[in-house]
C-alpha cells in the first residue's frame, strides 16, 4: 500500500494542475454525452405516456410509473407466441453459443499458444486476417452453407457460427501465452496427457479470459435477431420481438423503452461484475507483428 502511494505521488511530478483540470473537464463533458442517452432511455421506461410526449421534452421522469412494464406484460400475454418463448429462445441461443465458444476457442487457443506444430503460424495468421473483415462479407455464402447443412430456421444457424468467432480465439490465445511453460512441462513429466493438461491446468489458469469471451459472445448473441436464418415465429429471439414492439410507433413508445431497458440491463450488469477480469485479459490483446 505504501509503495503504491509513493508511486502515485511520484507520478504526479509531471502533472500540472491546469492540465489535469482541463483534461478532466473534457472527460466529464464527453462522459455526459455518452451517458445521457442511456439515462434518457432508463427514464423513458418509467414515464407515463403524457410525459413521453411532453413539450418541451424533459430528461428525468416526474411521476415514475410501472405502467409501461405492465402494458408490456399485457401486450405479450396477448401475442400469438407466449413471451416466455422469446425469452427461452434468446437464453438458449446465448447460453449454448457462449458455452460452445468458450470451450472450442479455448481448446484451439491452447495449441496455438503453446505448441510448435507445422501450420501454426499460417492458421493464426488466417484468424488474424479474419478480424479484418466484418461478417457482412460472408453473409450470402453462409446462407447457402446453412441451407446445405439443413440448419436454416433452426437455432443452430445462429449458434454454430458463434462457436467460431475469431476475436475470442485471438484474445484467448494471447492470454494463454503468458502461462509459464514450466507449469506445463512439469505436468507433462508427471505423465499427464495434453487433454488433461488443457482441462485441469490451462483452463483454470485462464478464468479471466473466459469472462472476456463470455461477454463478447454474449453481447452479440443477446442482441441477435436471427441474422435472417430464423423464420418461424416460435423460434424468434427477444430482440426480434422487441423490435416489433418498438416499430409499433407512437402508442408503443413507452413499452418500447421498457423492453430496451430490460435488454440492455443484462450485458451491462455482467460487465459491471467482470470488468477487472476483462481488463486483465485485454492487457494481453496486443498484436506482436
Amino acid at each position: 500500500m505504501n509503495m503504491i502511494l509513493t508511486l502515485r505521488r511520484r507520478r504526479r511530478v509531471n502533472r500540472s494542475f491546469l492540465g489535469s483540470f482541463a483534461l478532466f473537464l473534457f472527460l466529464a463533458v464527453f462522459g455526459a454525452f455518452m451517458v445521457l442517452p442511456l439515462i434518457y432511455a432508463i427514464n423513458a421506461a418509467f414515464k407515463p405516456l403524457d410525459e413521453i410526449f411532453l413539450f418541451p421534452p424533459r430528461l428525468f421522469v416526474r411521476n415514475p410509473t410501472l405502467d409501461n412494464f405492465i402494458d408490456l406484460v399485457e401486450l405479450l400475454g396477448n401475442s400469438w407466441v407466449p413471451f416466455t418463448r422469446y425469452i427461452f429462445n434468446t437464453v438458449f441461443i446465448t447460453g449454448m453459443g457462449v458455452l460452445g465458444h468458450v470451450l472450442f476457442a479455448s481448446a484451439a487457443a491452447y495449441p496455438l499458444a503453446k505448441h510448435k506444430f507445422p501450420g501454426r503460424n499460417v492458421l493464426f495468421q488466417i484468424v488474424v486476417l479474419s478480424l479484418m473483415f466484418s461478417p457482412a462479407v460472408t453473409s450470402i455464402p453462409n446462407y447457402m452453407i446453412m441451407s446445405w447443412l439443413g440448419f436454416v430456421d433452426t437455432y443452430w444457424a445462429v449458434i454454430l457460427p458463434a462457436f467460431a468467432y475469431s476475436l475470442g480465439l485471438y484474445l484467448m490465445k494471447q492470454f494463454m501465452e503468458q502461462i509459464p511453460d514450466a507449469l506445463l512441462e512439469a505436468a507433462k513429466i508427471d505423465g499427464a496427457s495434453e487433454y488433461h493438461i488443457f482441462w485441469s491446468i490451462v483452463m483454470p489458469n485462464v478464468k479471466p479470459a473466459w469472462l472476456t469471451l463470455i461477454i463478447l459472445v454474449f453481447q452479440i448473441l443477446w442482441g441477435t435477431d436471427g441474422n435472417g436464418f430464423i423464420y418461424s415465429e416460435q423460434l424468434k429471439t427477444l430482440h426480434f420481438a422487441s423490435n416489433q414492439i418498438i416499430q409499433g410507433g407512437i402508442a408503443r413508445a413507452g413499452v418500447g423503452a421498457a423492453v430496451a431497458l430490460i435488454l440492455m440491463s443484462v450485458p451491462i450488469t455482467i460487465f459491471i461484475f467482470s470488468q477487472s477480469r476483462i481488463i486483465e485479459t485485454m492487457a494481453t490483446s496486443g498484436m506482436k507483428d
Partner: protein
Amino acid sequence: MSNITVEQTAPAGTGRQPRLRTWWAVRKREMKLHKHSYLLMAPYMLLFFTFTVLPVLMSLLISFTYFNMLEFPRFIGWQNYARLFLEDEVFLIAVKNTLLFAAITGPVSYMACFIFAWIINELGPKLRAFMTLVFYAPSISGNVYFIWQMIFSGDRYGIANGFLIKMGIILEPILWLKTEKYILAIIILVQLWLSLGTGFLAFIAGLQTVDKTLYEAGAVDGVKNRWQELWYITLPSMRPQLMFGAVIQLTTSLAVADVSINLAGFPSVNYAAETIVTHLIDFGTIRFEMGFASAIATVLFILMVGTNLIVQRLLRKVGQ
C-alpha cells in the same frame, strides 16, 4: 512442447528432389508428434473454415457468375464488376458514404478510444472503473439506438427539436432523419457514440501495463510534462494494443449498416445513408442477385483487408 529436436536440413550434396522428400518426411513426423494439437483445434477450425474461410472463397467465385438461387450459376466473367463500377450509380453513392463514414468514424473513434482511456487511467481505481463503464456501456447495450430515434424524432417531442425550439433557434421542427443533409452527420454521431468497444478496453488495459519505472526513468532523463510522457514513453510502449485497436475500430467503421438501417430507414431518402453493406443486403436478401451481391461482398472484403494491412504497416513505424 516436445523435447525432440528435429534435423531440419538434409545432408549436403543431395539433389532437390530428395531434399524435398526429407522435408516432407520431417513435417510428417512433426505432425504426427503433434496430433493432439490438431485434435484439440479440430472442432473450432472445422467451424471456422466452414463459416468464415469457405464463404470468402465462395463469394469470390460466385462474383464471376450470374446466380439467382434457383438456376445453376452461369459464368459471366467480369460483368458484375463492370456493372458495379460503371452502371450502378447507387453503388458509387454507397462507396462514397462508406469511405466518408470510415474516414471520419475510423480515426475519430480510434483517437477517442485512446484519449479517453488515457485520461481515465489517471483516475483512482473506483472512479476509473466507473468511467470505464460509462464510456463502454453504449457499445454493449444492444439496440439502444432507438433512443436516438426519439432524440432526433421529426416532431416537437423529439429532444433535439424540442430543445432548439425552446431556445428559439428554430421555429419549425426539423425532419432530422428524412433530410439528406443531416442524415450522414447523425449516423456518424451515433456510430461514434457506439464505437468505444473492445478497442477502448484494450487501451485501458494496455495503459495499466506500461512499465511504471519507465516514467521515473523518463523524469530523470528530462521528460517535463504529461504530453512528453505520452509521446516518448506511453505511446511507444503500447504499440501492440494500438495495432489491435486499429483493426477493431477500422473494421467496424467500414461495416456501418445497422445504425443506418435503423435510423435512416432502408432504403434511406435518396440513398443518403446507403453504405456498401446496406447495398449488399439490398441485392443479397431483397433482389436475390447473388452474383452481383457477391461482387459487392468481394469489393468490401478487399477494401477492409487492404486498409487494415496498410494501417498496420503504418502503425508498425510508430516510435521506430
